[in-house]
């Protein structure tokens, strides 16, 4: 499977390969490109938002369209861009980091991806018929009030994509529990793997709340139930609770994997072992644990009463402690090290002050009474972009530069990388720093226009200029990708003097079976240990033998297609009962695929030992 071989194959074969793949490395590519596409879309929406707000009472876009824009921006960025890209990175690196040949359920892995993609497409098709317009939170009272089918697309799209995410979480959990290579004990796992593990737990416990909430909303909108219908005794606060019971853990789903990644990057490029490894692991767990107990900090102004507000305020602030442990441990990791600053490291270094500011404002928001002023203003917008862009997006960029060789066998161009970093970094602070003040000066969020002569003009103008800087940075990055694909520097198997197992394979990108022989782990940072002891490579933990591999399958694609069609049926059956055909047809098709899958034996295949020996040279 050398690169030359890939290039010789026809485009059709290439496409078919990706449509049927169950290989975690290829699924990672799919996730990255799917998520990347939606990131551009979400970014474009952000730019439209900023253009609308460049001057007071602007009429670049209409009020209704603006609401669709923010809703789709938030939803797209969180569910269709950030999470899938993160899951892509997990797929690319986690199985390698624990020395496995694949994930526990390769078929399910492919299914997760296709569900995400079709869910995302379904959601975005709503642009042609009227997009959802009740905010990414889609609070029940407004969502029930919203005319047209926008909200229905939101429900169906997220339901499908969410199912994929949930499966992905279970898959990663089973992988990490059952498939660690010999010697890879829990307390020897790289932090990115730990973060994947804990994030998966968060997904497992948070997504069901979203699933149920969307169901309730769907029933209210489509079948006339009364969960949130006040006239029949319904209660819209239930929606808000369920949303944030999901929603707060969700924001940690967005940041914890990158915390893990930064840990790996800092230690690699400081040539130093991670400072306080055990504390880092437990801090991650603690963040996840506390993350379930603070959801009502999004609801301080709902009127839950002082007891609830106080409890949740204290819980919220408590999360600062484990997060602080992490920040200081990263600094201590670099302290005394030999810090090499390349693009991956630049993004990681930029992350520290940016995220700390975001965390700072987070703790300030956690002070319930202060939040009576901040809530639903641009202060909150500033807070979460500081943590999400300054944490998640910076982390994603760091991860892409760090693992690009692992994923694509080439090193991204450093010069362009640095240009992207600096323009994006400056643009980011320009856009979002001023928004803290805008919020306090009386600008609520989700405002289509702000009025003239209210002291908000200059701040908004600066903010918009910042967004242009960010766009420039992103475009340079796109050019970088193309340049690298065409004539980027080829990477060796271990281009960064790595410490963990993903750099211990035969080549970059690794062969499709990952490890010819599973490696034996003798401590934290296994590859580093072997290199320091002069072996230079991992000791195998097993004799060379046949390797069992799963078969590719087109079923995940078809099954997701079934749900996609059923999604349309759900949305439009309220208009015309003929759509029930799509609804039941799609469901039956998907179910048929499921039954086909479960009754058809698929034992995979073996790569014979002889072939592996041949490939050695």
């Amino acid at each position, binding site marked *: 499977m050398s690169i030359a071989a890939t290039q010789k194959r026809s485009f059709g074969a290439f496409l078919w390969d990706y449509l049927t793949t169950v290989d975690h490395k290829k699924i990672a590519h799919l996730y990255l490109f799917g998520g990347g596409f939606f990131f551009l879309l979400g970014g474009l929406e952000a730019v439209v938002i900023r253009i609308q707000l460049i001057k007071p009472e602007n009429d670049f876009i209409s009020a209704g369209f603006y609401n669709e824009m923010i809703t789709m921006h938030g939803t797209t960025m969180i569910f269709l861009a950030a999470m899938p890209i993160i899951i892509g990175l997990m797929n690319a690196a986690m199985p390698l980091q624990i020395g496995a040949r694949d994930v*526990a359920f390769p078929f399910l892995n492919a299914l997760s991806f296709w569900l995400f993609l079709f869910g995302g497409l379904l959601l975005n098709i709503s642009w042609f018929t009227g997009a959802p317009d009740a905010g990414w939170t889609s609070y029940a009272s407004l969502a029930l009030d919203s005319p047209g089918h926008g909200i229905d697309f939101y429900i169906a799209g997220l339901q499908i994509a969410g199912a994929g995410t949930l499966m992905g979480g279970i898959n990663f959990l089973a992988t990490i529990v059952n498939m660690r290579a010999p010697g890879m004990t829990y307390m020897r796992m790289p932090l990115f793997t730990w973060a994947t593990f804990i994030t998966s737990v968060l997904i497992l416990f948070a997504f069901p709340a979203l699933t149920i909430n969307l169901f309730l909303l769907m029933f209210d909108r489509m079948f006339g139930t*009364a969960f949130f219908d006040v006239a029949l005794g319904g209660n819209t606060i239930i929606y808000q609770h369920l949303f944030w019971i999901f929603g707060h853990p969700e924001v940690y789903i967005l940041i914890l994997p990158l915390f893990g990644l930064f840990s790996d990057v800092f230690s690699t490029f400081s040539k130093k072992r991670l400072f306080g490894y055990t504390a880092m692991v437990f801090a991650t767990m603690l963040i996840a644990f506390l993350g379930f107990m603070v959801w009502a900090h999004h609801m301080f102004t709902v009127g839950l009463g002082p007891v609830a507000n106080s409890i949740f305020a204290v819980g919220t602030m408590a999360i600062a402690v484990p997060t602080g442990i992490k920040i200081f441990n990263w600094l201590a990791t670099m302290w005394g090290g030999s810090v090499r600053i390349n693009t991956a490291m630049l993004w990681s270094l930029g992350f520290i002050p940016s995220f700390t500011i975001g965390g700072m404002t987070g703790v300030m928001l956690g002070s319930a009474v202060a939040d009576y002023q901040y809530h639903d203003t641009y202060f909150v917008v500033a807070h979460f972009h500081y943590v999400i862009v300054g944490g998640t997006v910076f982390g994603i960029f760091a991860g892409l530069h760090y693992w690009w060789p692992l994923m694509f066998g080439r090193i991204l161009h450093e010069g362009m990388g640095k240009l992207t970093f600096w323009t994006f970094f400056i643009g980011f602070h320009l856009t979002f720093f001023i928004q803290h003040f805008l919020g306090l000066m009386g600008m609520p969020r989700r405002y289509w226009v702000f009025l003239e002569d209210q002291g908000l003009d200059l701040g908004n103008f600066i903010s918009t200029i910042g967004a242009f800087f960010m766009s420039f940075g992103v475009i340079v990055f796109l050019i970088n990708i193309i340049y690298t694909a065409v004539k980027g520097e080829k990477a060796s198997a271990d281009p960064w003097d790595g410490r963990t197992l993903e750099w211990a394979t035969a080549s970059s990108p690794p062969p499709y079976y990952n490890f010819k022989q599973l490696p034996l782990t003798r401590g934290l940072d296994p590859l580093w240990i072997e290199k320091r002891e002069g072996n230079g490579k991992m000791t195998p933990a097993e004799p060379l033998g046949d390797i069992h591999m799963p078969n590719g399958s087109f079923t995940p694609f078809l099954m997701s297609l079934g749900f996609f069609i059923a999604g349309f049926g759900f949305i439009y059956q309220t208009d015309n009962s003929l759509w029930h055909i799509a609804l039941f047809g799609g469901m039956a098709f998907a179910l048929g695929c499921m*039954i086909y899958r479960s009754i058809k034996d698929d034992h995979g295949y073996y790569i014979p030992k002889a072939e592996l020996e041949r490939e050695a040279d």
Partner: protein
Amino acid sequence: MSQDHSLYPETMPQHPERATLEGKNKFMGLWFFLGGETVLFACLFGTYLALKDSTAGGPSSEDMFGLGLVFIMTMLLLTSSLTSVYAMYHMRNNEFKKMMLWLGITALLGMGFLGLEIYEFAHYITEYGFTFRSSAFGSAFYALVGFHGGHVTFGICWIITLMIRNAKRGLNLYNAPKFNTFSLYWHFIDVIWVFVFTVVYLMGKVG
């Protein structure tokens, strides 16, 4: 990891369902899924508890619920839990026929339960005009109990598919994990039912 190529060993291991990596993965995966299901049902229970008094002038739980039917349903489902334990017992002893028999009984008991549940719903609708549109209480009731019923339905379809598919080929290390995952799932449904009858029916009757 690839120590065992054969799915048809000479001696059945103590835990055939977890003898292969595939089996271990299925086993873990299903348990984790159940962890998620716990939260799923908690959300429905929470919604139900929040809305159970919002009858909007319609019938309330005290008006409608009868204990007799629920008791029979409970017994059916609890017994089906035991029969699926029996099935797993025979699986471990490598007695394929007996395992199938007990799984069949499990499915029948499940169907009995489901039939009674449908009867119950029909009764509420025709007698009291109590539907999922009547009030927030109605919505929450049917959502919770119906969701559980949906799980039962899925379980029955699952086991029937498994039984038909494997009827002719006996027990091996490839299908043992599948039977075992079903059994775990089925117990979990029973666990949920314990809470349903306690929280919805018994507590609803108490007031």
